[in-house]
């Protein structure tokens, strides 16, 4: 079971976990990854998350499908917020459920590594001094994190 949601609304990790496991007795492990907005030592007033509507959801769904097949996950939930996000707020949630913990840890990690490098989202920084921030640059370390799965 794969659940993907993209939108401005915040999410509740406990509620999403309860939804994922409701009525099931075959899940032995759920790993939750939450990505939050940092303030970068007080310089950042927030992030603006842009996405490619349609493709963003489809790409996350495809990545979750690969994770389910590769790690025999029981269920995956992936939620990505868009729009303006303040420091301390949630950006992304990945829940990976499996019979045992290793598959759940690996599944969540795999989904995040691919999501960061191939789901069409872009972050723009806004600074506390009012200056128009720039677009966040993609990191080689993210590409390497993804490539370790291939």
């Amino acid at each position, binding site marked *: 079971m794969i659940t993907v949601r993209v939108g401005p609304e915040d999410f509740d990790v406990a509620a999403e976990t309860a939804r994922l496991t409701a009525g099931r007795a075959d899940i032995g492990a759920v790993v939750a990854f939450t990505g939050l907005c940092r303030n970068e030592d007080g310089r950042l007033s927030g992030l603006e998350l842009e996405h490619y509507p349609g*493709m963003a959801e489809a790409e996350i769904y495809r990545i979750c499908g690969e994770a389910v097949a590769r790690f025999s996950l029981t269920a995956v939930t992936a939620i*990505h917020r868009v729009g303006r996000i303040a420091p301390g707020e949630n950006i992304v949630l990945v829940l990976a459920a499996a019979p045992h913990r290793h598959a759940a840890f690996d599944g969540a990690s795999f989904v995040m590594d691919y999501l960061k490098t191939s789901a*069409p989202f*872009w972050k723009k920084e806004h600074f506390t001094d009012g200056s128009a921030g720039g677009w966040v640059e993609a990191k080689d370390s993210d590409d390497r994190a993804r490539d370790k799965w291939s």
Partner: protein
Amino acid sequence: MARLVYFAWVRERIGKGEEEIALPASVRTGADLIAHLKTLGEEYAHALEHGDVIRIAIDQEHVEHDEPIAGAREIALFPPMTGG
């Protein structure tokens, strides 16, 4: 006519998020498209200056630059992704 969509700094530099443009028959691949757009004005030349880093999606699926664009309903050009 081809429907083009742009995101993030590609969108900002070109100054619009989407457009429909007529493409010459010589534009066959994603790389051809980028090269052609760069001739359309300073804003395109600036946005696509480093053409090799631009990512291309055809009908909402990632493709390489040598992918033929014939039959595409929507072609997207955007920077490397930074979500998550």
